[in-house]
């Protein structure tokens, strides 16, 4: 993103040229990163950006090609959540973040592929088929924001927006060798984000470098009265300078280095922590006792909210309507049976069960109570450290359909990313190495609420001293 901004001004390249280049690239894309491409909108925005750059604007976002995950509403451009049930849905409104990006002059090139309704971590459950990992097209790019991650990694956009409910920005960022931020809950408006689990969902930026992520984060964050959970406070722009790591206490939770962690990932992350140590950080061991319940809590809370959030897709007002019906109940059944995929149905069933009379106390209420304990766990941990570092995922990218028949094992792989959503804390995934096979590995940084400045500052400092984020997949040759 920063280099494109430089090329516009130093090399006199036009945003229109870059846009054409991107649109061409998308046309030949073997990864299936996009669901919808908005050629006209992109060209129009590029033209306007060109004019402003010519007039000398130093706005770094001007003319930069950005991709938006397909669960973020774009006025006049179809927003499907990769689902049959919304395949014909065109919003009449922009998400708050889209409005902000448009105002800042970016070129929105299109809508990226994802797991249907953001439920999944492989981008294989989309109605248009899977997105492939640009580092190895037999592997998953991760998910659910797999399209947004792959598009950045494969230079099919300069940066993108994803959404993260249990790791959906960080895990694909890690699998695709890019940087992704799950901001503090409430710092980015959810207005226009098609809800999966309202108390966990956050929109966040994805890009190659932490600096680019910071620029995009600065553009989308802020209070929005249309989202009641948006936090009303003064948001300072996050600095693009690195954070002086001297004296910074880096907490390393033992629980993040337990059973199931691949040796490649463990080594790369520990090496990454050493980089911070060399930069002057103090490493402290911390204890996060309750995070072992994180996955269980998450799949109760997230599915409960999802079962309610997805009730509106009933075929009555918009989207797919099942015609194979004689009465109202049949219409509901037909619409929802043919509109949702098996994973979405599984989660609606789970969530409905967890909220049912007689089970609520046992599941939803208990999960909410444990969630509070996890929040307290982190609050305590941040008394002795400024930042918590661990792996983003236990393994690097796996085969596209490797886990398709084993949803439970797949859920368990969310173990490191889920706590940030349950607690609302910000978390950043940055590239920190590669496996022997050349697949990228991500490292997760977590900070106290609204301390994205620490996360991004540390990420920038790390990337000023490493080159992992600069390496590009050779996917064009495959």
């Amino acid at each position, binding site marked *: 993103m920063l280099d494109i901004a430089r090329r516009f001004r130093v090399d006199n390249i036009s945003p229109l040229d870059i846009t054409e280049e991107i649109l061409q690239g998308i046309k030949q894309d073997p990864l299936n990163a996009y669901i919808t491409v908005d050629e006209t909108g992109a060209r129009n925005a590029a033209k306007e950006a060109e004019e402003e750059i010519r007039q000398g604007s130093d706005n770094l976002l001007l003319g930069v090609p950005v991709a938006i995950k397909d669960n973020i509403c774009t006025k006049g451009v179809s927003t499907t959540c990769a689902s049959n049930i*919304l395949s014909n849905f065109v919003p009449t409104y922009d998400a708050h973040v889209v409005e902000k990006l448009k105002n800042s002059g970016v070129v929105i090139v299109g809508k990226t592929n994802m797991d249907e309704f953001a439920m999944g971590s492989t981008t294989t459950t989309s109605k248009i088929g899977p997105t492939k990992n640009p580092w190895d097209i037999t592997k998953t790019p991760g998910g659910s924001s797999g399209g947004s991650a792959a598009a950045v990694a494969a230079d099919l956009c300069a940066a993108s927006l994803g959404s993260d409910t249990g790791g959906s920005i960080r895990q694909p960022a890690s699998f695709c060798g890019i940087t992704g931020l799950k901001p503090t809950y409430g710092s980015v408006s959810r207005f226009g984000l098609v809800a999966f689990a309202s108390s966990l969902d956050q929109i966040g930026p994805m890009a190659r470098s932490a600096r680019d992520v910071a620029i995009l984060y600065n553009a989308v964050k802020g209070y929005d009265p249309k989202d*009641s959970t948006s936090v009303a406070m003064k948001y300072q722009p996050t600095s693009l300078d690195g954070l002086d790591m001297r004296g910074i206490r880096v907490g390393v939770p033992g629980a993040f280095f337990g059973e199931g962690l691949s040796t490649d990932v463990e080594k790369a992350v520990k090496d990454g922590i050493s980089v911070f140590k060399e930069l002057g950080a103090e490493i402290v061991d911390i204890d996060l006792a309750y995070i072992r319940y994180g996955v269980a809590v998450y799949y109760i809370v997230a599915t409960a909210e999802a079962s309610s959030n997805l009730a*509106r897709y009933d075929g009555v007002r918009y989207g797919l309507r099942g015609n194979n019906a004689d009465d109202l109940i049949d219409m509901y059944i037909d619409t929802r049976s043919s509109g949702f995929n098996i994973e979405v149905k599984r989660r609606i069933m789970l969530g409905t069960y967890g909220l049912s009379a007689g089970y609520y106390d046992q599941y939803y209420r208990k999960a909410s109570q444990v969630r509070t304990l996890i929040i307290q766990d982190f609050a305590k941990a941040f008394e002795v450290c400024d930042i918590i570092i661990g792996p983003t995922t236990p393994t690097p990218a796996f085969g596209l359909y490797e886990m398709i028949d084993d949803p439970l094992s797949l859920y368990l792989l969310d173990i490191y990313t889920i706590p940030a959503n349950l607690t609302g804390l910000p978390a950043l995934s940055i590239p920190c190495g590669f496996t022997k096979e050349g697949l990228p590995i991500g490292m997760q940084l977590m900070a106290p609420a609204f301390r994205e400045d620490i996360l991004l500052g540390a990420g920038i400092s790390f990337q000023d001293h490493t080159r992992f984020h600069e390496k590009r997949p050779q996917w064009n040759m495959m």
Partner: protein
Amino acid sequence: MEYDVIIGLEVHAQLLTETKIFCSCSTIFGDKPNTNTCPVCIGMPGVLPVLNKKVVDFGIKLGLATNCHISKTNIFARKNYFYPDLPKGYQITQYENPLCEHGFLDINVDNTVKRIGITRIHMEEDAGKLIHDLKSHRSLIDFNRAGVPLLEIVSEPDIRSTAEAYSYLMELRQLLVYLEICDGNMEQGSFRCDANVSVRPKGSVSFGIRTELKNMNSFRHVQRALDYEINRHIGIIESGGNVLPETMLWDAVSNTTQPMRTKEESHDYRYFPEPDLIPVVVDDAWIEEIEKRLPELPRDKRARFVNVYGLPEYDAEVLTQSRSVADYFEQCVSLLNSPKEISNWIMTEVLRVLKEGSEDIKTLKVTPEMLVSMIRLINDGTISGKIAKDIFEEMATTGRSPELIVKEKGLVQITDEDILKDIVREIIENNPKEVDVYKKGKVQLLGFFVGQVMNATKGKANPRLTNKIIREMLKQ
């Protein structure tokens, strides 16, 4: 056997806020279908609710007026069920921690005061309206009502008869209207009532099986439906059967209650806290602010009208039926300290005109000043009470002052004895037969002579004087 009747009422009051509870659409009734809608109230993907704080204001108002405890932390909850008029597949309502709890409302039954407990009052959104087109076999939905704010007011099962239920509803509706938070219109659905009914043998302490009663669209329906349902329960019990715990719909055509299909009532609503809204914290300052602006409540006003103005209970009851009528009365009294006289005029003429026309007392052409001037004209003998009625009518249609009407139409009372004697003399001369009968002792004929005088004077003769003169002259 004798039975105790146990009734609890659930009232849904549509609030008079300008905009809906979670979006800025208008709440106006009767607009073209689906014109007051937006992505939020029709449940489009990705949109979010934002609470209209006015709804909380209104809820606190009613809570204070019904002596409730106001909850400091209010969370909204989702009530999940599928129905085409429910855009999101859930209704945003309150479940645990309602805004108001543990209150009461005093009602009058047979001249005694009875206290009915208020279990809870909570805020929620209304659903849309389904319209079934029988000709085309289609159902259409109007979402104008979707998201209109409601207060649900749940009473304790303290009500023991249909009469008490009626009195409770009247009292509650009057309160809502006084507080200016609901227009109380049952026919338009802005004041809706469901009932829980059970009976038990007199003296029994445990409750009988209750049924829920819905679809009562007027006060009369509520009375009939309750009476019917109570008798149905007793009938079942006396014939040795068991009342089923089901939901009954009042059918106003057959005047019976019919069970709702079980498919529609067997809901598990799966309530859980609404994650799209943050808790609403009601602090003392907020409550005090509302309390300061609370108007005098109907019961207090009624008592004051009796104590301060010396009005009979009945007058106080009628005059305080509506806040604006009570205000009108007090404006009159402030101009002329003659409360009973003013009350009489309002209860008869003013309320009659209001009832006949669609007019509101605020737009009534007869202002308090005019009514008082008219009463003054009666009191100083300028006009008779009978003429005054005509003058009132004239004021109500033209809005002209009573003095002007009296002057223009020459309605000044005839109090000159000589003029009246001349008229009476003439009448005596023209009606020898009647005079004869009267003198033989049929004094009831006095009315006949008075009537003749009134005819001759177009009602302007002073009645008292006329009576006196006729009696005197017929003695001669």
